[in-house]
């Protein structure tokens, strides 16, 4: 369907329209647009309809990092338009595939440019200096673009110098010839001279085809007028363009109305409307990222900033992690520490584990700025609820990383939270400057012995308030202590959330049993020494996975019958007792048979 108009870049807004915390309501070729600037300066051009129920996103809230739909509060990240939170499902991480439609955007000549499927570059006009252009007030004309462009080719205005003189009360200087120095279907370049030829100004008049019968004239003057003559210049051009508008509209009313433009609304993608297929190949590294920065963020902790090599990084939610596929063949999980809407890069923190399996050592010693890494798309098995009255975040050591993302989201949204940072010393606090930015909500617990840590946790987790949720990430012994203390203090499993770095469980894999796969109609024997996951994969049944050690929760499946031996640290005690889910990477059968919903 794409004709020339669809393949071009068009102006869709002026710099004056994309002010902080506002959503501009625009239109191009019959398609409504929601245009908004995030606090980091990024300008988003999105289809003006929430994919959930079709409500205009222009009545939503630009919170500086995300756009929040007015209807049901779904939150969409700047840059990707990916959904990061659904208030009606507070305990769930929205699927990464829930994403509004975006259009390319860039700023030039004081205007925001976009297009349906633009190829090439937006216009570069010799008449206009990118930094010296002066955008005028956009004027909407109820007429087709071709009529407007035709009228603009005969448009008249005064050179800027003469308008400046008018500001002194001397009246406008005598107008001279106006010549067309450039023109195509959607713009006209005009040069106005004074009668005596002493001064001249060039202006470019872009005709934005908002709809078949509606065109926005977005004009840009070459050169910025002196500050004290800007308002007279704006007024002069506004008056002239308003007269042009009235004349063109009068003419348009005499003609039969044009056929309206119909913007194609894309079908809901198949992956949103149907049950997804299992991931085809175990652990996938769908992204290639480049190390843009590597720097020490604490004692033995290196920070890495990862930028996309091609295309936009996918949406993440607070608590999400990525798998990093290392040069030495190992795969490790690292939490994203970014705040909401920070999608120009991923930021992770890597603690050096000298006695570990070599993953962190590889990142610390071998990976350098400029290196390319394969990483998975972000996965969130540690989702943050935002319906809690208060949220308590407890971080031990490098466990700060997912909680840092959570704390930034809570702070930005104005929700009540406290962050407790446990570290061996001040020098062991990773990302200290980000933590400082969280202000009063942070309490530091430095250099505590195990018993002192226990006492501090007793006080932090004492007396649960109503609708309070706790998130804990840190070393295993600290998590075990927190689990015990929270339970003893009357907190229920569903209000205390843990993320383990690793699974310390000693797994007995000497058992042999049968797994029956209800959906696949397969019955497989799991021998001693093999995991269910290995057996599934050997038989062509694919399951998603990430850590493959029973810590992350990615490979959990529903258990239809049989008694699982869990062996994981992802499910809480209540969930384990219910026996409704298990991790195929470490869980085994208590009896001789399990029926799984795969």
């Amino acid at each position, binding site marked *: 369907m794409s004709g020339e108009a669809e393949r071009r870049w068009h102006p869709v807004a002026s710099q004056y329209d994309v002010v902080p915390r506002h959503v501009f309501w625009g239109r191009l070729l019959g398609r409504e647009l929601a245009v908004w600037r995030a606090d980091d300066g990024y300008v988003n051009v999105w289809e003006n309809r929430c994919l959930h129920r079709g409500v205009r996103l222009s009545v939503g*809230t630009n919170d500086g990092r995300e756009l929040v739909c007015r209807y049901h509060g779904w939150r969409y990240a700047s840059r990707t338009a990916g959904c990061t939170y659904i208030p009606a499902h507070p305990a769930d991480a929205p699927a990464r595939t829930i994403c509004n439609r975006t259009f390319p955007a860039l700023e030039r000549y004081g205007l925001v440019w976009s297009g349906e499927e633009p190829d090439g570059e937006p216009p570069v006009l010799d008449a206009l200096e990118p930094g010296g252009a002066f955008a005028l*007030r*956009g004027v909407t004309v109820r007429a087709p673009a071709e009529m407007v462009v035709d009228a603009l080719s005969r448009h008249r205005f005064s050179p800027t110098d003469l308008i400046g003189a008018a500001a002194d009360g001397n009246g406008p200087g005598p107008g001279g010839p106006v010549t067309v120095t450039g023109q195509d279907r959607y713009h006209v370049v005009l040069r106005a001279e004074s009668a005596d030829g002493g001064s001249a100004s060039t202006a470019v008049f872009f005709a934005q085809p908002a709809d078949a019968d509606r065109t926005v004239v977005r004009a840009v003057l070459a050169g910025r007028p002196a500050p004290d003559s800007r*308002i007279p210049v704006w007024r002069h051009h*506004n008056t002239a363009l308003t007269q042009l508008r009235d004349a063109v509209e009068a003419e348009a009313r005499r003609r039969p109305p044009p056929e309206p433009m119909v913007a194609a609304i894309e079908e809901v993608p198949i992956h949103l409307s149907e049950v997804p297929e299992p991931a085809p190949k175990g652990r996938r590294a769908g992204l290639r990222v480049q190390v843009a920065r590597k720097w020490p963020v604490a004692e033995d902790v290196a920070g890495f900033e990862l930028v996309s090599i091609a295309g936009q990084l996918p949406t993440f939610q607070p608590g999400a992690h990525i798998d990093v596929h290392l040069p030495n063949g190992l795969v490790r999980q690292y939490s994203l520490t970014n705040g909401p809407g920070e999608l120009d890069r991923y930021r992770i923190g890597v603690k050096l584990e000298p006695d570990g399996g070599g993953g962190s050592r590889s990142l610390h010693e071998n990976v350098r700025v400029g290196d390319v890494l394969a990483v998975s798309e972000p996965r969130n098995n540690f989702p943050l609820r935002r319906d809690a009255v208060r949220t308590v975040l407890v971080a031990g050591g490098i466990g700060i990383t997912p909680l840092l993302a959570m704390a930034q989201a809570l702070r930005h*949204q104005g929700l009540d939270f406290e962050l407790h940072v446990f570290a061996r010393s001040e020098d062991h606090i990773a990302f200290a400057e980000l933590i400082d930015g969280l202000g009063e909500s942070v309490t530091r617990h430095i250099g505590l012995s195990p018993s002192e840590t226990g006492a501090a946790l007793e006080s932090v987790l004492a007396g649960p308030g109503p609708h309070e949720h706790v998130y804990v990430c840190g070393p295993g012994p600290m998590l075990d202590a927190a689990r015990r203390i929270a339970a003893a203090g009357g907190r229920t499993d569903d209000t205390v959330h843990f993320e383990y770095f690793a699974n310390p469980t000693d797994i007995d894999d000497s058992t042999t049993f049968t797994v029956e796969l209800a959906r696949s109609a397969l019955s497989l024997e799991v021998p001693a020494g093999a995991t269910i996951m290995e057996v599934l994969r050997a038989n062509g049944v694919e399951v998603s996975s990430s850590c493959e050690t029973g810590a992350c929760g990615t490979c959990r499946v529903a258990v239809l019958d049989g008694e699982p031996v869990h062996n994981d640290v992802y499910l809480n005690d209540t969930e384990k007792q219910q026996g409704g889910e298990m991790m195929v990477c470490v869980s085994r059968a208590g009896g001789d048979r399990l029926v799984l919903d795969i």
Partner: protein
Amino acid sequence: MITLYDWELSANCYKVRLLMSILGLDHHAVPVDFYPGWEHKSAEFAKINPLGHIPVIDDDGYVLRDSHAILVYLAARYDKSGRWYPVDDPEVLGETASWLLFAEGTTNTASAARLYVNLGYDFDIDAVRAGAHRLFGVLDEHLWFREREGLDWVTSSPHPTIADLALFPDVALSEEGGVSREDYPALRRWTDRFRQIDGFTVMPGIFAPSRAAPPG
């Protein structure tokens, strides 16, 4: 205590509630069954306002009708800052009066279109919508130039006045009457700013401001 003869869905009654909320004034509302009961046209209500209009206030025995008159009275009497109706600033006062008259125009057009759609009033709907668009176009252009002057509100005062307040409901509710604000970006930004005023309150059809952390 101020008594307000009130109907929740009335834009003019909302103006009075809005100013009282911003000024922190308590009031007692007496609901008038405007629709479908037409109580404001009853013989009983004629004793309060023979014109058969709401809102009307009764401030300890001082009875006043007409929303804009009530805004003038309440601001002059109760606004300690003196900014909502600046009696000591002739220019801003003159502009305020001018825009209050303009707001009568939006009531007769944008608000009339809303009554046509919501309550089945018999208006020439094309004419009232066209009239609303003409006024919104004037207001949008005015506010665009105000922004360029570094000013946020309709008068030359750096602070909002009762003129902004009187204009806000008809503008913010216009889509109910089928009057789109798509072509009025400066007007849309002004409604965003207005909703951030301390003490702002809502009515059905008007959204609350968000509570995200402030920019910066």
